[in-house]
């Protein structure tokens, strides 16, 4: 899977590349409009992470060019400017998702994964982690063939954890994924704790393994022992 990261802030671009590389994606980085345009002409990408404010142009123009050329790449707009107008404009132009800086890298990773999954063929639309099988579009989860009865948030939590398996995830990153902006305003630790506890219990009760590990002071990690 090829990903193009278009971001004028070098440090941030590198962080993104590093994180997504670890997920097994091949990443190119473009630090300005020109580089980005060149890359788009030369290569074919599955997903493009696009900063709107570039020193020599607007990311929205790039998006328009991509759509004119019927690019098959999914686009995630990343912008410091959480202006509603930009968001609407971007989504209207055909962007698949929108992320506001500062974001959590696992969040970016989850969104990239979701976009790529959505662009794959019908039959592949399931996510499997050992005995856990998830059908994202139908919001159904099976453990050893037994369907789990999960709440909406528990389902989202599981998707997020599987999407970021073997990653240390902070409680804040998880909370923000589940609650969006509202996570900021509430004491979300209790909320996350309860959901993790319930999800773990439901998986174990259905005969699944205990895959959620607590990391001291940080949060959780989902993965094999």
């Amino acid at each position, binding site marked *: 899977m090829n990903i193009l990261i278009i971001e004028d802030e070098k440090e941030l671009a590198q962080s993104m590349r590093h994180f997504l590389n670890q997920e097994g994606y091949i990443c190119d980085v473009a630090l300005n409009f020109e580089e980005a345009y060149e890359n788009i002409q030369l290569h074919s990408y599955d997903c493009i992470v696009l900063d709107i404010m570039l020193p020599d142009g607007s990311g929205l123009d790039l998006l328009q060019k991509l759509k004119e050329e019927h690019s098959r790449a999914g686009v995630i707009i990343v912008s410091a400017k959480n202006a509603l107008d930009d968001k609407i404009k971007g989504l209207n132009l055909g962007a698949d998702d929108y992320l506001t800086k500062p974001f*959590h*890298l696992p969040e970016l990773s989850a969104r990239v994964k979701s976009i790529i999954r959505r662009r794959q063929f019908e039959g592949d639309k399931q996510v499997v982690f050992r005995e856990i099988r998830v059908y994202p579009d139908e919001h159904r989860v099976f453990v050893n063939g037994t369907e789990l009865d999960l709440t909406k948030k528990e389902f989202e939590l599981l998707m997020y954890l599987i999407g970021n398996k073997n990653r240390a995830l902070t409680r804040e990153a998880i909370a923000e994924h589940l609650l969006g902006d509202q996570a900021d305003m*509430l004491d979300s630790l209790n909320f996350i704790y309860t959901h993790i506890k319930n999800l773990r219990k439901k998986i174990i009760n259905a005969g699944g393994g205990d895959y959620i590990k607590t990391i001291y002071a940080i949060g959780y990690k989902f993965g094999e022992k």
Partner: protein
Amino acid sequence: MKLLKKVILYFIVSSVFIFILGSVSAYFVLKTLIAEEVDETLISEKNRIVKQLEQSAESIPNWKTIHLEVRQIKGNFAEKETLSDTLIYTKDTGEFIPLRQLHFYTRIKDKNYRITLRRSLIEKEDLVAGVTGLMIGIFIATILLLNLINYRSERKLWKPFYKTLQSLNAFELDSQKALNLPSVNILEFEQLNKTLNALTEKLRRDYRNLKQFSENAAHEMQTPLAILRSKLDIMIQDQSFSDEQLQNIRSLYNALNRLSRLNQSLNLLIRIENQEFNRKRKVDFSELIKQQLENLSELIQIQRLSVTTDLDADFVTDFNPFMAETLISNLLINAIKHNVPEGRIDIELNARRLRISNSGQKPKVNPDILFERFKKANPSSDSPGLGLSIVRQICLQNGIDINYAYVNARHTITLYF
């Protein structure tokens, strides 16, 4: 009190004194003048009388009327003539009348006479009455005339002033329009307008700069925050950290989160203040509340809160959708956050008001400042304390009155549309 009325009042008060003083002096001046006039008349009368007496051949009999007394006297007489005031009782009118009299002695045909001439003086009372009447007349006429002139000229003269006042009232610091007071041909008002134009222009410029600055500051802060967060996200993937190091990373992470939350809220506040969200659409508040409650349902469940709603589904109003969402979300989150386990939230919505009331601890701070920035019910909390300021700012911009009360262990926030 209008300036003009005040001026007239001062004028009236001071003119009363001036008129009293004027009347008194006029009285004395007039009296003196009249006395002099009478004296002159008496002297010329004397000469006429003396001539007449000299011409009459027969002896002169004694004569006594009010105006003339002639008496033959024996022996010598004083040369001197004397002028004096006197009062004489008259039977006709039954009162004393004031008179000026001239005594003189003359010798006619070897006989000595003492002659007294009298002329009546105008009575004091008459004089006082005359002068007072005249003064009062002038006084009233002056006041009336003054008022008339003022009334006539007020509209015309003060028109630019009232216009300026009107413009100032309508003036808004953050509006696109400058004050632009017109030039007028009254020096004082012209100066006033010029000064106000310059002053408001400076205010507007400063305000714009300040706004621009805070906007840029909040915006520029997002990139370094994003870098920090991404580096920390990568760092915590390292499994070789000791617990102490992890604890330190956690502290860093917490501080970073606080900072980015603060920045986000400030950013939002600034953008609401800058009226970036003024595009309005029909917003169904009852639907919005249901949606938000659904979003928050799991948080509500965790605290085992019970929620009752009384929503008027017909209430649809023009509102910016984003602001409406932020408003409702902030209010509901507030009601959840400051609740107690197994508490309640009651929501009532109709065309007149939205009332959200929830059980909760008594606020530790004065409720009046809860809507101010960085004021929070629990000073030790991590939250920046901007939630309710955002609510207030949204209400302010949409002309909604907001009220908070803590009654019967319940926080109640009411928005009056």
